[in-house]
């Protein structure tokens, strides 16, 4: 064919960091702390619920369910989020189920972003926001979280990475259609404070912008921190779409069940997009997730609630990894939330020298070196920045600590590495 066969909307969105790094991790025998998924099982009650859905009497659970969300699931989501937001939610119009939070994001960008619309993305960001905005014809506008030096002798926290209020305000324009908020933030683990959310909310209201709030790690917050939902701030419910994920909530990333919660005036457009892209989501997993949420709703706040136990368990793993990384000479940034941790590897420029004027950011070269030479996989932080900013923060790598056996294996590698460094 003389003209290109593919559509123009695919321009600039074909590269994907995960394809490269997943292949790399698979090529070398590695202890993989790179990609974000747990290596331990989902909770028993959820596995049982899925088993019932699949093998039980209700064989119609193998057939289509309601396109915008299996009724038992949207009902319990409406109940739970209604309680969390202090609002009466209609399961049919204020909730929509998607194929993972990923598809929820896709529906949001496709539904709300037009040619010429600007979308503010806070760096570092979960990498899919950029190509999704571009595919919708929008223009991403980036604003960085900037690290403040921690107190003397202390390790940096994700809370030390902050937006400059004046800088943020300067990014809003007549063309700003939406801002994407991700809290708790992947990759840093930052949990935005009420003050920070108010800053963002004020600007949204002032500029009549939408807020696409990716809250997939909402239950993974540590040290007694509180996850605050921006939709609960004054003036925000009506302009916010909240995105959630069963994969991250219940450690079943492979089920690909996500949802959106928001006002009908916004969700109606998501429904339009949904019915024109996948139409239905798989039934059985939705049924199981509904039962999982029912159980959690009944146990809410109690010590045996999975939402209480999981973060407690992950906090311990976080602390364990922090210790090992410090021992080997990396400088971890203590995450307030999520199951990711970013560590500063600038100390390693002696072992892995920087190459000036290289196209590839330092952290990417380091990460590849670490895979090949230490058998440990992590993701370079520069992967979470736009092309122009990849070298702004290029001496950090991201680890995932939602791991059991893999974390122990990583610990062994780090201990060995520490000894090698100490040896003359």
């Amino acid at each position: 064919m003389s003209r290109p066969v593919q559509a123009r909307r695919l321009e600039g969105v074909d590269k994907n960091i995960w394809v490269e790094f997943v292949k790399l991790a698979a090529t070398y025998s590695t202890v993989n702390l790179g990609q974000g998924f747990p290596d331990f099982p989902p909770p028993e009650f959820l596995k049982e619920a899925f088993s019932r859905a699949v093998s039980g009497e209700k064989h119609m659970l193998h057939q289509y369910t309601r396109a915008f969300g299996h009724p038992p699931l949207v009902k319990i989501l409406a109940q739970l989020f209604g309680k969390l937001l202090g609002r009466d939610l209609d399961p049919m119009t204020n909730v929509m189920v998607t194929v993972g939070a990923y598809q929820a994001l896709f529906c949001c960008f496709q539904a709300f972003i037009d040619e010429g619309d600007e979308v503010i993305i806070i760096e570092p960001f979960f990498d899919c926001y950029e190509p999704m905005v571009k595919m919708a014809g929008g223009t991403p506008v980036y604003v960085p979280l900037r690290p403040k030096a921690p107190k003397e002798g202390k390790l940096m926290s994700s809370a030390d990475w902050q937006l400059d209020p004046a800088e943020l305000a300067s990014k809003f324009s007549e063309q700003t259609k939406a801002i994407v908020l991700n809290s708790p933030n992947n990759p840093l683990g930052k949990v935005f404070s009420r003050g920070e959310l108010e800053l963002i909310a004020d600007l949204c209201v002032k500029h009549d912008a939408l807020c696409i709030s990716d809250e997939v790690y909402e239950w993974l917050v540590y040290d007694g921190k509180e996850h605050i939902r921006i939709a609960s701030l004054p003036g925000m419910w009506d302009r916010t779409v909240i995105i959630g994920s069963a994969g991250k909530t219940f450690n079943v990333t492979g089920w690909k069940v996500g949802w959106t919660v928001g006002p009908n005036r916004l969700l109606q457009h998501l429904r339009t997009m949904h019915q024109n892209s996948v139409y239905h989501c798989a039934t059985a997993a939705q049924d199981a997730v509904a039962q999982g949420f029912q159980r959690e709703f009944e146990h809410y706040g109690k010590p045996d609630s999975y939402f209480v136990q999981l973060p407690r368990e992950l906090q311990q793993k976080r602390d364990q990894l922090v210790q090992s990384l410090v021992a080997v000479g990396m400088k971890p940034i203590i995450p307030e939330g999520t199951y990711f941790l970013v560590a500063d590897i600038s100390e390693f420029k002696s072992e892995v020298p920087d190459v000036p004027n290289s196209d590839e950011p330092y952290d990417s070269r380091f990460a590849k070196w670490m895979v090949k030479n230490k058998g440990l996989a992590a993701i370079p932080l520069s992967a979470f920045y736009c092309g122009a900013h990849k070298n702004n923060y290029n001496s950090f790598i991201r680890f995932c600590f939602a791991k059991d056996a893999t974390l122990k294996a990583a610990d062994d590698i780090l201990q060995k590495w520490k000894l090698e460094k100490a040896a003359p």
Partner: protein
Amino acid sequence: YFILQRGYCFTSAYMQKTCMLVCVRMSTILVEFTKVAADPSIVNLGQGLPDICPPSYVKEELAKAAAVDRLNQYTRGFGHPSLVKALSQVYERVCGRKIDPLTDILVTVGGYGSLFSTIQALIEEGDEQLLHSNNACFVFIYFSKKNGGNPASSADWVLDPAELASKFNSKTKAIILNTPHNPIGKVFTREELQVIADLCIKHDTLCISDEVYEWLVYKGNKHIKIATLPGMWERTITIGSAGKTYSVTGWKLGWSIGPQNLIKHLQVVHQNTLYTCPTPLQEALAQALWVDYKRMDDPDCYFYSLPRELESKRDRMAQLLQEVGLRPVVPEGGYFMIVDVSTLNVDLSDVDENQPYDYKFVRWMISSKKLSAIPLSAFCGPETKRQFEKYIRFCFIKVSLNMDDIANNWVVR
């Protein structure tokens, strides 16, 4: 029929798998009829979903997969390795050519998801087109009845070759083919496919071949893949569906198969829309496909046993409908049947004039016979509504008990 337009309207209409495509908001129509049909006292014979059980080994494989911890987490984005391997084996056998599981296949959320990925990947918005300023244009082509008169079989519905040829020009990007066809049930013959293939080659056009009902062909018919015709593999995306293959529509797994230079673009769309499909379902589907791959020479293979089961259901439904005075158009494939209701001459002239006859008929049938179906003109544009308003669509992948209600409800009331 063709579609050249960006996602939105087209896919909405296309979901109804019809040969008549328009920028019509399908959702309101379907919402009305599916809501009505949700009433338990109504026998729902309209909506396309099986109420028969999927084969037990299929359900068992899903239960087994979900018990493996690793299979509850992310898998390869473009398709779970064991699944794309199984698909490549099955289709290599069917197509008689090598299919690379990693580059020639994309696993999607249902056949629907494949259609979406294909259109997003390959069809340009803003293409230089005639009808609309911002969108590529639709060009429709309608089936006509062979020899005029009253069709008794889906084979009586044909495309006029001259009319088809007249629709192709240098701006034609793609043709969408659906065989076996929903709702008419037509199974395109080799000759008919050759006409389409010749035009695709002549005009350098892509072919998007929706073959989700590929195994559901009845005696005397053969499903032929247009991608196997000379010159077609390199320009065709063939779409399949686990839901229709294994009677598990709620699994929402489908696939696109084609040459690497086309599939790679679908993969880019996929990595920017939902990234990966559910893992346990893909693993279970892979295992089920292996079971049937190994017995593809055996009549007990589900690919052949399901259509045998459905053929008798088809015949029973056609008989029941004839007994109550309707005229079914017996399908050669698929699990839908369209039925001419004008034979009953039910006088609905006192009801709202503006509504097409088939809408009125379905509503009358729901309230007086407690049976529901889908009016065919729901899927038509204003120009063709009148032509098709005497047909309604039934679905026969239903347990006998429900089908018998056609007779029971009709007689009693």
